[in-house]
């Protein structure tokens, strides 16, 4: 009996070894970890074939997870040694932590890294800016997308200032045909990302305010931040009925069904709308608060790619990353996924008109990244989580703008000591 157990164990070990062998795959193949499961089709039908024209021998598998689970799943796979060779990098601390745990390699040596500006690389660098560990792929821009037919019907034009913006919203509310502003608070992040971070940079002067927040020269209780909260609090009457239970998917559907006039948007929504909406769309940047002249946009570095330090096929992985720095990749990416804007120094022609409009704002306005992302979301309570929570509450009318600023700053003060 003992012998049979031994034999069984032996067979099992052999089977396991075989499985492990299959999983670790032969040289010449790469596996990409990503949260962009929406884009799997584009990777498989456009991006990977284009790469294979240069390197026909490198077989690439795009293996995405659901966005919500990505960080958790990736960390588990990296710790367990089963992660893919190429890791799609979230901006800032999530990826920085991977680099610090020696799970990502530095990519400074990759040919073509000089094609990216420092701002483009900032989201994937160590705090001292000396080491970069992911190759930047794209940023996303926040703004407002509108239904051109609805605008034409009521005879309104793109609002330039917040006063005009409110007038337009009021007109749509009086008319009643369309939901004036499409945004829900059920998923919370919409209020933060498409609300606060969208209209806010004009108040805190983009990168200036963001840097001051990190250096401690400004506080979230300062008037510019409270004013941004006041602005989003003023949206509540113009949102769809029951917006407190309106999810992000509800918002997307509401607008693409043509029932909404203005949609508080991230540029990543463009591809969804292109597939579903039957009407002409336009986009305008966040309208300016009274008395401001410079405009700022949230042009958020969002997606990059690095090499798994435990990869068995780093040579091929490097070749792939080198290719990511080329204008060829940038052009394919920008046009296959309108709304994800390449970060390279070489300008890329974007065919989609809404996406082209949004990327055009880079010429007239100053870009900034979301102020909660760098350094400030490192402790407990987490500033980004708090921001989702309070922004949704401010729009819901459950929290005053002043209290929102105070809650954020109090939370930050508990763990963050700005360098003097």
């Amino acid at each position, binding site marked *: 009996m003992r012998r049979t157990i031994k034999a069984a164990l032996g067979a099992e070990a052999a089977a396991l070894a075989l499985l492990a062998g299959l999983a670790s795959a032969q040289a010449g193949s790469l596996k990409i970890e990503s949260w962009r499961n929406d884009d799997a089709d584009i990777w498989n039908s456009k991006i990977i074939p284009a790469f294979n024209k240069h390197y026909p021998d490198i077989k690439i598998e795009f293996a995405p997870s659901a966005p*919500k689970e990505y*960080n*958790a799943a990736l*960390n588990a796979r990296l710790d367990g040694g089963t992660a893919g060779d190429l890791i799609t990098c979230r901006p*800032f*601390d*999530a990826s920085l*932590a991977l680099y*610090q*745990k*020696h799970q990502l390699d530095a990519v400074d040596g990759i040919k073509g890294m000089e094609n990216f500006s420092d701002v483009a690389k900032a989201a994937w660098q160590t705090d001292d800016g000396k080491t970069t560990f992911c190759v930047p792929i794209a940023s996303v821009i926040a703004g407002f997308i509108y239904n051109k037919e609805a605008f034409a019907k009521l005879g309104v034009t793109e609002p330039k200032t917040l006063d005009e913006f409110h007038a337009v919203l009021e007109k749509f509310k009086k008319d009643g045909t369309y939901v004036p502003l499409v945004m*829900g*608070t*059920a*998923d*919370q*992040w919409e209020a933060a990302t498409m609300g606060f971070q969208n209209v806010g940079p004009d108040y805190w002067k983009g990168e200036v305010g963001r840097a001051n927040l990190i250096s401690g020269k400004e506080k979230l209780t300062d008037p510019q931040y409270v004013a941004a909260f006041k602005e989003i609090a003023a949206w509540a009457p113009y949102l*769809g*009925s*029951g*917006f*407190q*239970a*309106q*999810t992000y998917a*509800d918002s997307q559907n*509401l607008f693409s069904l043509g029932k909404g006039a203005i949609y508080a948007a991230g540029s990543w929504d463009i591809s969804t709308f292109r597939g579903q909406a039957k009407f002409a769309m336009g986009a305008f940047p966040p309208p300016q608060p009274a008395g401001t002249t410079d405009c700022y946009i949230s042009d958020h570095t969002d997606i990059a790619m690095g090499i798994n330090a435990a990869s068995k096929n780093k040579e091929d992985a490097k070749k792939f990353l080198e290719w990511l720095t080329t204008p060829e990749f940038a052009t394919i990416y920008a046009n296959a996924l309108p709304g994800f804007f390449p970060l390279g120094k070489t300008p890329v022609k974007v065919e989609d008109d809404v996406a082209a409009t949004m990327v055009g704002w880079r010429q007239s306005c100053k870009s900034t990244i979301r102020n*909660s*992302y760098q350094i400030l*979301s490192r402790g*407990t*309570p*987490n*500033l*980004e*989580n708090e921001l*989702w*929570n309070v922004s*949704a*509450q401010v729009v*819901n009318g*459950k929290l005053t703008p002043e209290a929102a600023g105070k809650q954020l700053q109090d939370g930050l003060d*508990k763990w963050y000591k700005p360098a003097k």
Partner: protein
Amino acid sequence: MPESLSPVTAQMPRAKLAGLLLFFLGPAVVIYSLFSIYPLVATMALSTYTSDPSGARSFVGLANFQTLLGDALWSKPFWNALGNNLIFFTVHMCVQNPVGIALAGLLSLPRVRLKGFYRTVMFLPTMLSVVIVGFSWNLILSPLWGVASGALKAVGLGSLFAPWLGLESSALVTLSLISVWQFVGIPMMLIYAALLNIPEELIDAARVDGLGQLRIFFHIKLPLVLPTISLVSVLTFVANFNAFDLIYSVKGALAGPNFATDILGTFFYRTFFGNQLQLGNPTMGAAVATVMFFIILLGLCLYLFLVQRRIRRYAF
């Protein structure tokens, strides 16, 4: 010598008895230890460590628990989650189980037609994936295109409609009721099975004595199925304090609005795996999991010592 040992085993040589025990108990012990006891102990061990940015872990004793229960940053969300969990459990106890008992009572009545059909239909939601349940109810209750507001309007109660899932005051109870809707089949089935076990003679005797169905149910059937009801309560308790999936699929890991729907499961998930920019903290997460384990253990002990011992069982 304990009387339970049969004469056959009593006469066996010791070695043979040991071999027999190993043969019958061994596999279960090995599998149970490997997949239940080991992870439990490993989780508790992990909760006594902390990790630095490079991923290296160091032993800190009970410091994680001190932080969790003593530092307002952690204790506030923790007590909030525990309180919400109690509400979640109370709704199940007050709605799911009584409704389950009532349905089982109705099904066990003589001369009910289409019994099998009702039983299946009422049990169906239990077999659905939570994601589907969450998604469907999200749609049903949606203020934009849900049927709920239209249905209320049709009966003249349109003014009662509110975006329940989005309001701090009603989100948790709404989610609890969705969960009740999904799982009401389980108490129904268990109690139905227990009701079927009651000998016909008892019921017949009661009927001869002139009792109606209602009184038969309350005076004869209900006392006889009390052990099953208490079992169902314990199952509900354990399931509720381990609940996570419905909240996560409907409200996400941040369990809004303003953490009104945050229960221990989602609190644990956020701590262990992180959320958006919040990085996961496995050691602190393990501490939360350990506390959850002890809460459930405490509940079970209370049940065991206060309730289980007093229940009288009837052998038919």
